[in-house]
């Protein structure tokens, strides 16, 4: 059960924002980073017939987005329970 006495709204919000920041960094790096800003550099690497930068823009970032949402949903559930604010 909770080690925060169940009424630590600030701590809960801090933990939430921490998780959001981590996920947004991955979100940004795989789409805007690998898919756009560094696409040219990554294109020198091949993934099968795909240049890697092109692959991130046309395939890879989408798979990562799906994984991120489910990771978020699971981790938020953990945080909810840790701070005892989950729904019944």
């Amino acid at each position, binding site marked *: 059960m909770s080690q925060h006495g169940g009424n630590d709204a600030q701590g809960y919000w801090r933990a939430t924002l921490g998780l959001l920041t981590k996920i947004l960094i991955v979100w940004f790096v795989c789409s805007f980073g690998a*898919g756009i800003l560094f696409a040219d550099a990554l294109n020198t690497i091949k993934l099968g*017939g795909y*240049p890697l930068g092109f692959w991130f823009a*046309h*395939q890879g970032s989408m*798979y990562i987005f799906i994984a991120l*949402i*489910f990771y*978020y949903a699971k981790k938020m559930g953990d945080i909810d329970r840790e701070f005892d604010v989950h*729904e019944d």
Partner: protein
Amino acid sequence: MDLQTTIYLVVGASFALYIGIAIWARAGSTSEFYVAGGGVPPVMNGMATAADWMSAASFISMAGLIANMGYGGGLFLMGWTGGYVLLAMLLAPYLRKFGKFTVPQFIGDRFYSKTASTVAVLCLLTASITYIIGQMTGVGVAFSRFLGVSSETGIYVGMGIVFMYAVFGGMKGITYTQVAQYIVLIFAYTIPAIFISMNLTGNPIPQLGLGSGFTGTDMALLTKLDQVVTELGFGKYTTTTAGSTLNMFVYTMSLMIGTAGLPHVIMRFFTVPRVKDARSSAGWALIFIAILYTTAPAVAAMAKLNLHGTVNTAVKAGGDLYAVEASIKAEERPDWMKRWEKTGLLKFEDKNGDGRIQYYNDKTKNADAKAKADAAGWKGNELTVNADIIVLANPEIALLPNWVIALVAAGGLAAALSTAAGLLMAISAAVSHDLIKGVFVPNISEKGELLAGKIAMAVAIVISGWLGLNPPGFAAGTVALAFGIAASSLFPAIMMGIFSKKMNKEGAIAGMLAGLFITLFYVFAHKGIFFIKGTDFLPLIGGANSFFGITPEAFGAVGALFNFIVAFAVDKVTKEPPEHIQHMVEAVRIPRGSKAVDGAH
């Protein structure tokens, strides 16, 4: 059975299925449309969301644009999926906890002001109507081919059917209809892709086929495509960006935050039973969306290669693309080209009078390609293909069986109709519930509210159909403008409403108006005031794309930034929101104590 009959049969059967399900779902459930998600398993809810979300722009237009743009087209793929990450984390769970079912209601309550909710309705209407213009363009394309008429006539027919569909479907629990529409459209999209991938690469999974070798050669498919298009003077497929890297960056950002700010998408997450479900249902929706979105780049590249291969035999056989006998004779062109010529969306003109079709980039900056074309006696590109027809024509280009072609027609119509209906619902709710009942005539009867909603729908269809006759761009480009408008106006206001306890009504209203105004100003400068042809005012802003080379479709992210800056500046010099509002924000942040959604003010 001939093609036209098969199309009528398949499309007719799919319509019968939707109507049948709508009647069955209505008989079996007494719950209202707004809580339809409550009793629906999360997986099915995800499918319905995906159908609601994936429109004519995704189904009909996107792969064609990617085929034209190459690598740069990836901005649609990343932009229209990446927004779900933002939606799931930044908005959906908190709006679900808030427990009202329209976006203007949230903005009105959070910013304790009817003015704020009226401004939100204005933003919502501008974005949604622009979005429907894009749908109408797509519907016009689908119907013109399906009925063998011009695309104008196609739009008129489409307007009629969308209206009947929205009025009829909007009254019932349409979730199950949308599940059926998702199934039709996803099969319609993936089956031809599987056939074509198998043909070109021997790999039945399009996502893998795109990265495989081109059958009959030792080259990767993408390498082959790169080679063919550069030789014909087009940009290299796997590296051509959309404008500049900066433009591609802000364009992708606009689509992402626009996705998170579009009211008809957000509404979907109000109907799940718990806050917990709001988080994961975005993930389920994205899985179903990604099945189409990861197939689209394969459709795009393969259709492009097939199209070049159709008019130039040297593409598949190898050898000189500029040889005389490589270009096919016009009179031997395949039937599908003749069928699409009738719609006016595919045109062939024999400029050098040699009776053959030369398809290349006559405005190329590639000196090598230009010299070769001149040497071969080519007098300009002779084939123009509207990007919006690529997906619908794709199975015909690949010479697939008739039932596959018919299935694609049904899929395109399912995509356009389900989204148009969803948008019209959002418009009618905003006008009748938030504007008329919420602000102007609080004691309006339920019947009056319903009538106002239907009139709003009809007006929206007429306006958008009329503007759809002279669309500001391809379906996907027009829809992108709608995302820019939502991104610059609604997303920042909702986000600040949740993440900033101190944001007050003055800041939010000023921010929304500033973001909406600057984005519309930039868009209208390029596309005409309210998209009316001839009213554009480019000289005033110093020429096309004058703001750091950013195109109007990509401007939403800049508008959103402007919105945030104006909001925080105004917030600093005006007084804090009242105590009870700050407590309300704290309560919204915590999942416990969520209640079922209700619509009351």
